[in-house]
């Protein structure tokens, strides 16, 4: 368990709802849920979740910290915004789901092998290299995300598409050699670093 996670456990003891309210994006909305279940019924990914948003909110109130933060459920959200559009209490459910996922990740207790989480991490690393997404590299990374042999198989299976995209000038093979970047790469990195510092300070201010 990460150090930060331990600190948070000690700080909030049993009151997970208060922890969520203080640390999770839009977390102070959680208490306003009235358990109607419209979000759960509206979610197109509903059948694939362990816990729909309605249940997640109830679990937060019931103090089920580990279960919520290490749940794969929030990672299943595709940001379709159906739940936000329909929630009679106007909770920003999509944002809360992302906030919870993010918080679990920060504490180091998010589910390790959740594909969305893995993809998000790869995406972020790819993006941070040049300040732009290198689609060729991202694609190849994703082919090999499940091991080398599977990667080769994936690559061969998609070779037709790759060739088509190349012919249509939608794919530049030269991107493999580093690719293009934003104009002020170091400026961007400094900005991101500063943002991370501010967020760290906010969390530690809570400690």
């Amino acid at each position, binding site marked *: 368990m990460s150090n930060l996670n331990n600190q948070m456990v000690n700080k909030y003891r049993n009151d997970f709802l208060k922890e969520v309210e203080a640390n999770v994006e839009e977390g102070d909305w959680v*208490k*306003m849920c*009235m*358990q109607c279940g419209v979000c759960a019924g509206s979610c197109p990914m509903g059948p694939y979740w362990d816990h729909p948003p309605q*249940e997640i909110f*109830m679990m937060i*109130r*019931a103090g089920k910290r580990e279960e919520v933060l290490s749940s794969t459920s929030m990672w299943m959200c595709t940001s379709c915004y159906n739940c936000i559009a329909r929630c009679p*209490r106007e909770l920003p459910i999509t944002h809360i789901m992302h906030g919870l996922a993010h918080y679990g990740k920060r504490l180091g207790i998010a589910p390790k092998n959740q594909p969305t989480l893995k993809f998000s991490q790869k995406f972020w690393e790819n993006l941070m290299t040049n300040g732009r997404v290198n689609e060729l590299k991202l694609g190849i990374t994703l082919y090999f995300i499940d091991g080398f042999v599977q990667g080769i198989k994936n690559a061969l299976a998609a070779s037709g598409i790759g060739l088509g995209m190349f012919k249509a000038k939608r794919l530049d093979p030269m991107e493999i050699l580093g690719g293009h970047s934003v104009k002020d790469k170091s400026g961007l990195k400094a900005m991101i670093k500063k943002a991370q510092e501010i967020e760290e300070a906010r969390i530690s201010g809570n400690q």
Partner: protein
Amino acid sequence: MADELLMGAYICKGCGIGDRLDCGRLETTATRDGKAKFAKSHDFLCSAEGVAMIQADIDAGETNHLIIGACSRRAKVEAFNFQNVTLSRANLREGVIWVRPDTDDARETTQEMADDYIRMACAESKFMKLPKGSGEQPLNKNILVVGGGITGMTAAIEASKAGYPAFIIEKSGQLGGVMAQLNKRVATKSPYAEPEDTTVDALIAAVEADSKITVHLNATVTKTSGAPGRFSVDISTESGATTNLSIGAIVQASGMKQYDANQLTEFAYDKSDNVVTQLELEAMAKAANGGPIKRKDGKEVNSVVFVQCAGQRSDKEGHLPYCSGFCCTASIKQAMYFKDQNPGVDTVIMYDDLRTPGAGGEDFYRSGQKKGVIFTKSSVSTIDASGADLTINFHDKILNEDQSMSADLVVLATGQVPNSGPDPYAVPMELEDDASAEDKQAAADAHEVAIGVDSILNLDYRQGTDLPHLKHGFTDSHFICFPYETRRTGIYSAGPVRRPMDSMQASVDATGAAMKAILEIESAAKGAAAHPRSGDLSFPSFRIEGCTQCKRCTVECPFGAINEDAKGYPQYNESRCRRCGTCMGACPVRVISFENYSVDSIGQQIKNVDIPEEFDEKPRILVLACENDAYPALDMAAQNKLEYSAFARIVPVRCLGSVNTIWLTDALNSGYDGVILMGCQKGDDYQCHFVKGSEMAHYRMSKIADTLKTLNLEEERVATYEVAITDVERTAQLINDMAETVEKIGMSPFKF
């Protein structure tokens, strides 16, 4: 009005009647068969010109009994509104031409239908008298209000504002009732976010300052006799002093009491002082006076759990089956007591279905959530009070798992029990001999429970001391159609004695009941019915020489209007009567009648229908239709151009309860092939305007099989239905079904 019977028949040719029917022949029918003095046709009878023609005849003394053959009696009532004459309407439009096809084949039977309706209207007219009103009671503006809670006080203030003196009878030593025990009330004003002052003190001050309101504290009603407009009420105080009041109408606002939480042993109410009811928490909050709320042992409450629906909405023995409707918002309010004082107090509301009625209910709920009150959808199984703190064992219904939680204090939302008097019908007045032993036992058990309570009104009525109940001990008043009305005319119930409700609803109720009481007072003074036959001046009378003192009328009257004198003869109290005619239907010797509605006024209509010979293949189907629901439904069927058999003859009746079996016997004897009775829904969810009329009719008709057997007729020839006003297609279908049945089983052999 001259006593001489001068019948004048008017036939309207408008709305296509003239095109479809031979109006000349109808005139002849009216004068020759119906014995009308004259008959006239008019192209447009409800026009100013047509009405003026009729009025001129009345003014000239040509007629005092009008027969109008035009549209339904429910149409053009403003136009055909003449003073000091009786009026019979033959329904030629909705009853004939609109339900029959305009074809050559149908012309003959359609004309016969119209002829019969003219004969029927003439027969009715012959046996109608103009009702005069009894003048039995003067204008008595006094309103008695039983109960001095917010309902009673509001009713008294509203009555006083309208100029009617009110007398509040309060059993305890002070006004205010349950509301006075509260710390604060649920928000009543936008933005519905904070608990508010109860305003009881202001209400008490207003009552005490009002010169038109007299308050009797520590007093009960020991006897109520008489009728609306002339109630004589004895008020007795604890000391034994008795005052007699002369009263016009009564509002019963006897309120509610808390459900007895001692029955909830699973919640350890009987074992721990830290398990309290909502009312007990109100007292604790009052005692805290804005400071931290403390338990009985002096400990400040840091965590509190509210258990909703404690002993409510449950099928368990001894529990309340209903939702009391106020407890969810009350618990939210009480959780706010804690949160407003110290946001650090944990407040959890364990609910099954959270119900927050009223305009601001949802906002108040939201406000509670914003303040940090936790809501958990769960069912509490047990509360363990063995430790220092309480342990609440519950099943989380969202997460579907059993959990437990500890708390300093548990508040039970136990709900309301009405303060009704004993139900006069707890035991059926006369159990049939063939009733099963089980039924008799059940009735006896119910009676045990019901007589356990003190009478509130002590009515000196033949039919019991108090207002009849419907379900769960609440006084009976139709919650949609006739709120506040009870089954005792001139006595109105308001507040939680009528149905479960919160204080805002109780205030609204009080106002409504006060207005109803005023209406009754004014109507009684005129000798008119207040409700539902508003303004009806007719009232039942009986021929004493024919009466066999069988008491059927006094038993069956749904409104307890009829007492018995020393010799056992019925004693009518005109202003208690609602003019339904159930007594008339009940009377086996047919001595009861109204001036304009009697065994003859309907019976002669039935007899004056032309019955063709058996081999004409023209059956006759008598339809006795309740004028409140079934008859309008039939009119609507006509408006929708639904067709039904040309052999049906429809007679509207005030209530199916007024149907005397002699009408059926006569009809079958004189050759009708089928009889249909259409009344309203009966039972607990009744739609009958006269509560029990339809039920009585169904009961009587269940015995008609004997009559049919003696006549050697098939049972299918008589059918009784419960019909709603919306059963437009069904009413027409029922008639057609009967026509089909008659075709199948053949014509009646009784055609002469």
